[in-house]
């Protein structure tokens, strides 16, 4: 603000104006996108969370009733929140640990590295609907090959997607299969660790674990942090795999004449994003759907703000 009082040469002023116009021109597509596809729907979601609207008859003001319903009289909300929390704790942790392990492995492989890298990366690219259907088949307890093999080996054969206590682990397995993104990120980070530090550690007589603990990990910890936070945010959007797995496993999919039980079996795969879809596009309770959407937004933004902290290194300056 102090600048405003100091006289500015006219030429400089004109230049600044030109620059401002230029910046605005370059940013314009995104500014429109920000307004129409982000700011407007966000405001509107908050607005609808206080309205009663069935997508057909005109909306009316509903006060806090939608909020009261979702938080106090809709037990499925807490089931969904619990599942989301489970996925955050277990799926994200296992994915990061497994991705790091695979990243470490691929940096050590010397023969056929190209083959292994592609093999490890490939599943990440499989379209989620296709991958989920494939896993629903592979893990089908009655007819799938996985339980067949487990049986041959004399191991227990879980019910996977049909058993409420195994459905989330089955989804976790599917998520670990598509680990390619994390593998590549970790691989790049691991190759960036200065060699001298390993040599110094070796001179000090450090074993493999100590080298990992005192050299590798400190060097890559920002990447681990990044992987954890983005993993949490992805989990907040976890939708396709959960819904498709439930549909395929319950046998109620497409036009089979029955209504799909959301979160099959017994709400065990029921997540917040599915709740928005179910409330908004199946029960047509737009108000309650928007309440869940607002809550989902708040949680996601809380985690995003972790990324935005300067320390996280996510926003590197030029």
């Amino acid at each position, binding site marked *: 603000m102090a600048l405003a009082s100091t006289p500015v040469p006219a030429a400089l002023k004109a230049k600044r104006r030109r620059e401002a116009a230029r910046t605005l021109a370059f940013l314009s597509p995104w500014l429109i996108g920000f307004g129409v596809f982000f700011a407007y729907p966000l405001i509107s979601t908050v607005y609808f969370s206080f309205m009663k609207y069935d997508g057909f008859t005109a909306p009316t003001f509903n006060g806090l009733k939608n909020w009261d319903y979702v938080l106090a009289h809709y037990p499925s909300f807490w089931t969904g929140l619990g599942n989301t929390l489970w996925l955050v704790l277990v799926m994200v942790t296992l994915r990061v640990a497994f991705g790091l392990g695979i990243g470490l492995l691929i940096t050590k492989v010397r023969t056929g590295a190209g083959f292994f890298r592609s093999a*490890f990366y490939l599943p990440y690219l499989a379209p989620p609907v296709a991958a989920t259907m494939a896993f629903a088949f592979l893990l089908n307890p009655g*007819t799938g090959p996985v339980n067949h093999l487990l049986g041959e080996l004399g191991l227990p054969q879980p019910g996977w997607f049909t058993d409420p206590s195994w459905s989330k682990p089955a989804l976790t397995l599917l998520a670990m299969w598509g680990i390619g993104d994390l593998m590549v990120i970790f691989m790049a980070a691991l190759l*960036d660790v200065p060699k001298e530090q390993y040599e110094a550690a070796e001179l000090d007589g450090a074993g493999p674990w100590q080298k990992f603990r005192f050299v590798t990990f400190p060097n890559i910890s920002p990447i681990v942090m990044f992987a954890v936070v983005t993993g949490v945010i992805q989990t907040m959007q976890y939708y396709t795999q959960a819904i498709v797995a439930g549909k395929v496993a319950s046998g109620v999919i497409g036009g*089979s004449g029955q209504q799909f039980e959301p979160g099959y079996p017994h709400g065990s795969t029921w997540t917040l994003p599915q709740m928005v879809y179910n409330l908004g596009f199946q029960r047509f309770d737009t108000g309650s759907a928007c309440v869940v959407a607002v809550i989902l937004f708040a949680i996601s933004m809380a985690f995003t703000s972790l990324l935005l902290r300067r320390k996280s290194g996510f926003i*590197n300056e030029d």
Partner: protein
Amino acid sequence: MTLTSTVRLPARATSAAAKLARRRAALHWVAVHSFAIAAALFFLLPFVFVLLTSVMSDQQALTSDLWPTEWHWGNYAKVWRTPGFLSWWRNTLLYAGAGTLLTILSSVPVAYALAKFRFRGRNLALMAVISMMMLPPQVTVIPMYLFWAKQMHLTGSLWPLIIPMAFGDAFSIFLLRQFLLTIPKEYLEAARIDGCGDLRTLLRVVLPMAKPAIAAVALFQFFYCWNDYFGPQIYSSENAGAWTLSYGLESFKGAHHTNWNLTMAATLLVTAPVLVLFFFAQKAFIEGVTLTGVKG
């Protein structure tokens, strides 16, 4: 992206020590590659099982057999002849193709401005981009659906999926910005001294240098559109003529709930183009993924 081993062998040593070191290196090699093979089985066997099941007979696909007794390659022809299957392909290609093109056109200038222009609110804008990138699409889906359905009357078509791509995609902007940051200022200043305006600088100097990043972004966006299920489910699925592969695949399972063989064949047909594309553009892709990470 060269893969160098972190295990270093001493260059010169006494013969006994060298022998020991060689043996340890060999053991290390065996251990590492055993793990790698086990991991490769985990990652690749699902593809193998799916492929094998896709050529079984209807009956055999329902057994726990792993190997087809007869190879029914005709299953693929059957899937291909599913009513609508071709239009799912056409729609998906249209969505992915147009979406990718529009994303690049609209995101490059924004990323360039965020990376190279100095202006007040730049950090704020960047934070907004990141927030958009992290926003679950379900948060805004209800107003967006109402917008497309009640104001634009475009639901049941691909337009609600494609049009937003003309207004910058947050992830692409972010990725491109990360890359553009690495272009040294001197190039831009040299261009300016040569009398290039901002647009010319972008087109003549920056774009050629940013090709790998643009390729990566294009690939990501193509895959995103190809794989998208939520968008088509919400906006286009109420018109069977506007179904995409992801959505159609699910309905395929509904219509053929007894035929795992056909379902698996369809699954592979939907996955195949993505895998082929990956093999052709592997390098660009992996560089792109690396860009999303932070500099350690």
